[in-house]
């Protein structure tokens, strides 16, 4: 750790991992409800478990991004953080607001929660991923603004590297596009149209800038490759991201009431969206092969390489699979979508956060890298989680293809519930694999407490 103020990243990373555990537990609850429908009903209905699962995911990824920014920006700009106090204050506000929201979901009927929290004044709730009460949404904006102020002031007074500028752009974009979550017209078509300005323009737009910047930072650190080379790659990758991804939003405008021409724009541009993800893979491997130093943190390098590969598989390959309009006509809103959602979120945003945490956490604990046995344990967790997400994706893809076949094709299509009964076996397999994922996650956390072997100090 080169700057004192980088230390504020630590609580952010710890909270991120804690919420990650919660996310997976609720995933397992839902996975079980998929096979035993009345499990925990009516205490935790499926929709409640789902909003806890997905909102915890988003919130912990945001904790991870913020922690990453607080760690990276001082080192990149070669100056202390503008205000570590503000960063800590925002940490607690965000954590408490997040926890209260989750408690609200679990303890209060959703309709009651809505009327308690001002949803009748400005209705924003009850839309996928944006289920948060109005006051939570406002809280997110306040925390984001204070965070952006802190980071921007730091960049302004320090060295302006490309990595820090790209990170900043991505984070500002994240905040700006979140503002569309406050726009909820009573015309469903308009509602859906602009809902995607938050959801798609996040994961296939500005978040990829954050992803690229974080990956570039970790790669510079572990490979020692020249900054000029890495930053050139970074710019080309994010250029391709926005060139393909902005118009690529059209792959969500096929069947929601929007004009037919979106089938062309959406299909063509989103079919090119795998390119930046492929470049990320090539980039990561290329830099590691051209490394100028042997960094003792092998686990961080593994996560960085894994991010490249799995982001390409999940977003690139599984995205492409259903992105052309004639295919999407059949797969739209099936388990194929869920399969893609899981591998893409894991491969891109979970893994890049874990790569950053893997690199930064030892530094924050006063060492260059964890001991050999601790790293071995972490690498085991890498393989357990990654292989299980691959299998979860494969099972859901199989379920999805059968679902399409049974319910949407042929002359005597089955109804939704009848088709679900036919593909139950894949939901069982998914749930079992989910427990392997949990095991990987437990091992990951365990690796932080591994006392065996000597941690490496000075590099």
């Amino acid at each position, binding site marked *: 750790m080169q700057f004192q103020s980088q230390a504020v990243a630590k609580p952010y990373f710890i909270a991120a991992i804690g919420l990650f555990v919660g996310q997976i537990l609720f995933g397992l609850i839902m996975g079980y409800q*998929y096979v035993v429908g009345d499990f925990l009903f009516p205490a935790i209905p499926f929709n409640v478990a789902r909003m806890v699962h997905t909102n915890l995911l988003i919130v912990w990824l945001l904790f991870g991004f913020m922690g990453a920014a607080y760690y990276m920006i001082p080192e990149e700009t070669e100056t202390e953080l503008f205000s570590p106090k503000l960063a800590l204050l925002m940490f607690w506000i965000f954590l408490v607001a997040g926890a209260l929201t989750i408690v609200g979901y679990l303890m209060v009927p959703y309709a009651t929660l809505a009327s308690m929290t001002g949803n009748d004044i400005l209705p924003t709730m009850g839309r996928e991923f944006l289920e948060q009460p109005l006051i939570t949404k406002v809280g997110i904006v306040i925390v984001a603004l204070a965070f952006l102020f802190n980071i921007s002031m730091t960049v302004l007074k320090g060295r302006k590297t490309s990595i820090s500028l790209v990170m900043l752009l991505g984070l500002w974009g994240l905040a700006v596009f979140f503002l569309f979550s406050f726009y*909820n017209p009573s015309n469903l078509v308009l509602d859906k149209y602009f809902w995607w300005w938050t959801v798609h323009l996040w994961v296939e737009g500005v978040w990829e800038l954050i992803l690229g910047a974080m990956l570039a930072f970790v790669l510079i650190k572990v490979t020692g490759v020249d900054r000029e080379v890495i930053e050139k790659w970074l710019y080309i990758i994010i250029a391709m991201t926005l060139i393909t991804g902005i118009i690529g939003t059209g792959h969500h405008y096929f069947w929601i*009431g929007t004009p037919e021409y979106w089938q062309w724009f959406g299909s063509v541009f989103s079919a090119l969206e795998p390119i930046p993800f492929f470049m990320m893979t090539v980039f990561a491997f290329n830099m590691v092969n051209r490394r100028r130093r042997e960094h003792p943190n092998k686990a961080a390098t593994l996560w960085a390489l894994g991010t490249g590969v799995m982001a390409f598989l999940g977003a690139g390959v599984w995205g492409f699979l259903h992105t052309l309009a004639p295919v999407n006509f059949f797969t739209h809103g099936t388990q194929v979508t869920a399969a893609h959602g899981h591998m893409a979120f894991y491969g891109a945003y979970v893994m890049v956060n874990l790569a950053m945490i893997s690199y930064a956490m030892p530094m924050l604990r006063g060492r260059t890298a964890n001991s050999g046995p601790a790293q071995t344990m972490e690498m085991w967790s890498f393989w357990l989680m990654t292989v299980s997400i691959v299998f979860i994706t494969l099972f859901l893809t199989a379920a999805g293809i059968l679902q399409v076949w049974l319910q949407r094709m042929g002359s005597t299509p089955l109804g939704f519930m009848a088709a679900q009964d036919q593909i139950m076996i894949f939901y069982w397999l998914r749930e079992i694999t989910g427990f392997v994922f949990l095991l990987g996650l437990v091992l990951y956390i365990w690796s932080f407490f591994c006392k065996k072997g000597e941690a490496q100090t000075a590099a």
Partner: protein
Amino acid sequence: MSETFTKAMARNIFYGGAVFFFLLFLGLTFDTMQTLPKRDHRENITDSVVRGKHIWETRDCIGCHTLLGEGAYFAPELGNVYTRRGGPFIKAWIAAQPTGAPGRRQMPQFNLTDQELDDMVAFLKWTSEVNTNKWPPNIEG
């Protein structure tokens, strides 16, 4: 990457590309906004439809169902449920939940009034009339 291709060139492609394609996106959005009224039949969005959407949202129906293919995949598509089942069935169904059948997926009881049930149906009816380019592939959704 070759030496003649500099970081400054890469940066310019990024800024130029981002601005160009964002403006194109705004242009397409503008055009879409002009054509939408003919496709979403907004003249039929009555007060009842508006209230229905509000009930849809405050019960988080999207947390189990898809609506025009977006949402959760735990329960049937409802964008065309009005065509599939009709208004009276929908009202009776919602009022009868949960089924309590052991091991079967359960839908909560929302205690909606008759007026609220009518609003819900009005919203689903309006939704089923949106021009979705012939999606879903068949009546099962």
